[in-house]
């Protein structure tokens, strides 16, 4: 197992003939990813590197080559269209590498995807890799190693840094997911942590967050209520001043909200192992996992068991309730 991408991945590359698209397609094939098609409107019927068929539409790539996953390299003004085209063609996992998509367009895309069975990763992300199985992204494959740590992150090169530290200490990864640094992204921390939690192969989760927004706090709340696997968290940007956008459109502290300190506190309160120093991400994972049993141990006295179940049930009713509220609002 692994999440999102694996040996069953049949990848279509949208924008396969562009500079980035062609370079990374070759890298992905070299890694062993099953690239089955490319899509470039107007170039249908030709071949990429004499072997990968190019189609005019994603639908054709699905019908003729059985594509089930897509990676998008098209420029920002055309990327929202490409994402929706992939979803409309029934692609299950859509990875959008493109950076610079306006938030307004992504709000529409996000809304559209809610009513489909497609999952979007990104935009403005390095993609997804399940080491030894498939690489659907632009990350350097060689720093990864097959294993049991799930990694989820808002950034690119910082994820590579964390992965390298893990690999060097012998901790391979089940899957590494870069969710992207924009304000509107297809999958948030919570979505990916949920998948890792359900994946029997993933034994521990490393979450790499950064300043801005409340996605880390929401993930912490989820971990507190539903996750028994050990979770590690690092938050980049404790030295960032308020009101300044640190590269990523999402990385900004505004109105005293979204600071690293606040996020680290939320993580710690949820029982997540907070890593303070980015140079010891790997070491911390090693230390905790070699000291502690692989899963949290619960004292299963009948009363505490009931309490746990109650808590979970409570939060699910809460969810339903808010859904009904929403419905009422719409009426």
């Amino acid at each position, binding site marked *: 197992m692994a999440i999102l991408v694996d040996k069953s991945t049949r990848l279509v590359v949208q924008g396969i003939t562009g500079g980035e698209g062609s370079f990374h397609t070759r890298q992905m094939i070299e890694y062993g990813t099953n690239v089955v098609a490319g899509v470039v409107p107007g170039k249908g019927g030709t071949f990429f590197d004499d072997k990968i068929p190019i189609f005019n539409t994603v639908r054709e790539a699905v019908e003729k080559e059985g594509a089930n996953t897509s990676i998008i390299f098209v420029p920002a003004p055309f990327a929202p269209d490409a994402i929706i085209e992939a979803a409309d063609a029934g692609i299950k996992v859509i990875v959008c590498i493109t950076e610079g998509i*306006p938030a307004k367009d992504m709000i529409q895309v996000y809304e559209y995807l809610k009513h489909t069975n497609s999952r979007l990763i990104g935009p403005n992300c390095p993609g997804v890799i399940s080491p030894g199985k498939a690489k659907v992204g632009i990350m350097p494959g060689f720093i990864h190693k097959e294993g049991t740590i799930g990694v989820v992150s808002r*950034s690119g090169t910082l994820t590579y840094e964390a992965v390298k530290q893990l690999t060097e200490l012998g901790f391979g990864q089940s899957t590494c997911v870069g969710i992207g640094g924009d304000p509107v992204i297809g999958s948030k921390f919570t979505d990916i942590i949920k998948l890792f939690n359900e994946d029997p192969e993933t034994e521990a989760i490393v979450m790499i967050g950064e300043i801005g927004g409340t996605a880390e706090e929401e993930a912490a709340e989820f971990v507190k209520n539903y996750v028994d696997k050990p979770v590690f968290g690092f938050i980049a940007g404790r030295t960032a001043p308020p009101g300044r956008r640190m590269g990523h459109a999402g990385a900004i502290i505004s109105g005293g909200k979204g600071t690293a300190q606040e996020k680290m506190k939320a993580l710690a309160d949820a029982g997540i192992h907070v890593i303070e120093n980015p140079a010891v991400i790997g070491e911390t994972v090693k230390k905790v996992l070699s000291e502690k049993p692989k899963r949290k141990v619960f004292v299963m006295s009948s009363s505490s068991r009931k309490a746990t179940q109650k808590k979970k049930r409570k939060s699910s009713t809460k969810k339903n309730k808010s859904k009904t509220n929403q419905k009422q609002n719409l009426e």
Partner: protein
Amino acid sequence: MKIHEYQAKEILKKFGVAVPKGRVAFTPEEAVEVAKEIGGNVWVVKAQIHAGGRGKAGGIKLARSYDEVYEHAKNMLGAKLVTYQTGPEGKIVKKVLVEQGLSIQKELYVGITLDRSTSRNVVMVSSEGGVEIEQIAAESPEKILKEYVDPKVGFMPYQARRLAFGLGLDGEAFKNAVKFLLALYKAYEETDASLAEINPLVLTTDGQVLALDAKMNFDDNALFRHPEIVEMRDIDEEDPLEVEASKYNLNYIRLKGNVGCMVNGAGLAMATMDLIKLAGGEPANFLDVGGGAKAETVEQGFRIILSDPNVKAILINIFGGIVRCDRVAQGVVEAARKVGVNVPVVVRLEGTNAEEGAKILKESGLNFIVANGFKDAAEKVVNVLKELGIN
């Protein structure tokens, strides 16, 4: 991207949002001319800088005669305004907005922004205007009313009505508020704004609802379709080094510390800044040179970091990944030679051909301290700071 209050009001006016009569002025004489155009006998002179907190700092003054308009404008123009948002260095005022004085009955708040947890826009109002919204949110969150906008249908009139009723308005004021909110949302949506904040939104004694202040920020990713907004950029309001960096597509933010850093990727750049702090230094900047880290960008990066006289040491942290480290190293060496780097430079290169890269750096004859790994880089920075007597 940020713009001035007077520019935000010009935009809002186009979308039918009610704003006080007024215009920008660059000289005291022009300020008086504007006052005469507006008519009446009370005016407000407002310093135009990209920072809040102007009122308390003396950047907003009431005038009851043309002479007072002249005096206030004269005192503000060319003077340094220090508010809690500008920092102690303050900002030089280069223009003022002269507006009609209003007879205010009540100050309210309205703000529109993107709510990241729902991935929807949210329109927020509060009956507590004039104060920081964060303060209201912290002290009495029940006083903030919110409507989330369904992207399929947009901001609906009933939502605007709900907010206006929630503010306790009725009659003419209610009607005007609904109109105001709908027009403001339209302006926000159509200009690809990331923030439209009216604080205070005022209710006048004759039932008008107007934007007394206006703040608009825009989504940088969407500027390609708004050339008219790009033209509103005021370079005087930005740090000169940051302006210089933006010419080379470098993402640079100047900070107050002593250790400059050059990193590829925003997340890793932030983590590197954190590492400098943990090592006992203070980051002098945020600098993301982008994924590739080409020789030219590295060279410009060096130039910009070194233009900051506070920089006593530099940490370069490049995770090349697919990019070959020997090429990056070559670029770093060439750039350092060209620029003439005169402070210690700790370099950490990771990725393909990292060893060849380290060799090139070591054999360059330049003052590079080659680090092996992130942790080693941190330790080497600590040592450098110790030698410099900083730590």
